[in-house]
């Protein structure tokens, strides 16, 4: 950093790996506890207590695992690309480390969304897989994550690896609006948006609440995993110097 004097504002101080490590360490136990409680509440509520669907019966319950995984597979990608971009432009070490830490959990969510969707698709649609726009663009997202991780590992020198993969993440950002709007732009087998659409969500409140709890749980899990991995990065890069 060019600053010799400490910067007073806490947001800027987060740019220092040491400060980040200290602060995130304090946050971790609370974050882990809240995440665990939300997961237990959401899973029990959604899988055991929410009413069955009028058409799909109990089969719809897989959405409590599927929908948050799909939502955060995209959100984590945006976070990864933005953090990578900040690392690229401002050369912030912490941002580059956060970007690198986002990839595995994002890839895991994408994989989970594809697998649970496939398991649901066979009984409901009559097919494990269909090459419609939503499914295909989500599969491309998985390949983007895998490509990002492969590129990170392929380059020995850390700064070069961070910069090259940040460019890849920024290029792949275009896939995110395509995934989200695919069900509106084209005729797809996948149904349209239920919650994130104009007007009221087309889901009964008794089914929506556990879904919102699960969304919060997945979001905090992503945050928790990214913090843990970034802390590991801080230690690892310290050792390498």
């Amino acid at each position, binding site marked *: 950093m060019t600053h010799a004097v400490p910067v007073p504002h806490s947001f800027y101080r987060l740019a220092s790996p040491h400060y980040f490590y200290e602060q995130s360490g304090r946050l971790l136990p609370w974050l882990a506890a809240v995440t665990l409680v939300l997961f237990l509440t959401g899973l029990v509520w959604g899988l055991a207590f929410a009413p069955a669907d009028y058409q799909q019966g109990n089969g719809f319950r897989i959405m409590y695992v599927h929908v948050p995984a799909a939502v955060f597979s995209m959100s984590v990608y945006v976070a990864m690309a933005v953090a990578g971009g900040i690392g690229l432009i401002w050369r912030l070490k912490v941002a580059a480390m956060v970007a690198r830490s986002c990839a595995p959990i994002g890839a895991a969510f994408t994989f989970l969304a594809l697998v649970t969707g496939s398991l649901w698709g066979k009984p409901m649609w*009559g097919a494990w897989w*269909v090459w419609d726009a939503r499914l295909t663009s989500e599969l491309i997202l998985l390949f983007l994550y895998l490509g990002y991780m492969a590129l990170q590992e392929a380059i020995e020198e850390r700064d070069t690896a961070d910069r090259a993969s940040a460019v890849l993440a920024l290029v792949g950002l275009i896939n995110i609006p395509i995934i989200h709007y695919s069900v509106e732009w*084209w*005729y797809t087998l996948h149904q*349209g948006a239920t919650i994130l659409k104009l007007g009221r969500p087309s889901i009964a409140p008794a089914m929506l609440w556990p879904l919102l709890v699960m969304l919060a749980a997945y979001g905090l899990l992503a945050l928790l995993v990214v913090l843990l991995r970034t802390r590991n990065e801080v230690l690892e890069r310290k050792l390498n110097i």
Partner: protein
Amino acid sequence: MKLNPVRRKRLTLALIIVVGVGVAVGLTLYALKQNINLFYSPSQIVAGEAPLQRSIRVGGLVVPGSVQREPNSLGVVFTLTDTAQQIQVRYTGILPDLFREGQGIIAHGRLVAGGVVQADEVLAKHDENYMPPEVADSLKQAGVWRQFKQQP
């Protein structure tokens, strides 16, 4: 926001990449608009946009009361609509659980002469509405059911 020249250059470069890729992909998808659709609508088939005797998919709502099963086989004939036009679909085989009258489905098959689709696969298209059975019943009784059903 003040940026030093080096960072401004990097920021501009990053923005050019994102916007450039966005425009390129946008134009490509626009050019491929038709090919990305998973299925044709009955209106498109009536208008002659789908090729004859080629493998296509057609999607729409099953017209209530149109499903006729052959007594001695798995053969079934039904009418698909997109609320504007209708076409007939013939199929032999087991239908998915969610197949019912009024339900959105997608049939994969060939368009044969006379505007009939000979299907070799039928997929049920689920809509984005989730509700307990009691809510669905009360909606039907209140006569506001139609507005909850999808438009294909």
